[in-house]
């Protein structure tokens, strides 16, 4: 069912919210760009303030997690929670791969705050996935 707010906006523009706009290159580029660099999917669609705020929130969360000596999960097929941690982390896009390449986020089991940091990094990735979906919705015209 369509979101009533989206329906109101789309109707105001004279469009049916349940009918997707014709697929353009932006429908592919925006979510991929948004995943790779947090906020970029909004920036390339001229939603500058939203893009900058998303970028700020996700970068702060990711790097605060690293600053708290949180763990960055690598690809693994072991414990289920470790697999889910990797899936969450990889949602952060390029900064995840940079962190892995630079060997950041090795974790520190001796500090309680490091466990908060691990969760910060996972949640930063998950929030970036939400932001990428939002960029896609903008690209298909579902959201202004």
């Amino acid at each position, binding site marked *: 069912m369509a979101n009533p707010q989206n329906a109101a*906006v789309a109707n105001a523009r004279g469009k049916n919210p349940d009918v997707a706009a014709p697929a353009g290159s932006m429908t592919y580029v925006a979510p991929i760009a948004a995943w790779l660099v947090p906020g970029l999917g909004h920036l390339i669609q001229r939603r500058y303030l939203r893009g900058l705020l998303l970028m700020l*929130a*996700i970068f702060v*969360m990711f790097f*605060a997690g690293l600053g708290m000596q949180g763990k960055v999960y690598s690809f693994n097929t072991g414990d289920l929670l470790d697999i889910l941690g990797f899936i969450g982390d990889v949602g952060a896009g390029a900064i995840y791969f940079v962190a892995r390449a630079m060997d950041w986020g090795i974790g520190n089991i001796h500090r309680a705050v490091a466990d908060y940091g691990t969760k910060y990094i996972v949640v930063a990735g998950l*929030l970036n996935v*939400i*932001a990428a979906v939002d960029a896609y919705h903008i690209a298909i015209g579902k959201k*202004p």
Partner: protein
Amino acid sequence: MTFELSHFNAALLFALCASIVFGITQRVTPRDMLRYGAYCFSLFVGGVIVAAWVMWIIKH
């Protein structure tokens, strides 16, 4: 670079960042985004305070 945050400060930073993303992505108009972001932030922080008092009551 490492830094130390208290549990409450860590919860505040988490609430702020998550609320910004929720506000922007879950609402359509800027006014609604601001209101929803503030609503999420208050629920996050309120939840932390309520949980803290519940734990204090359990301990005592």
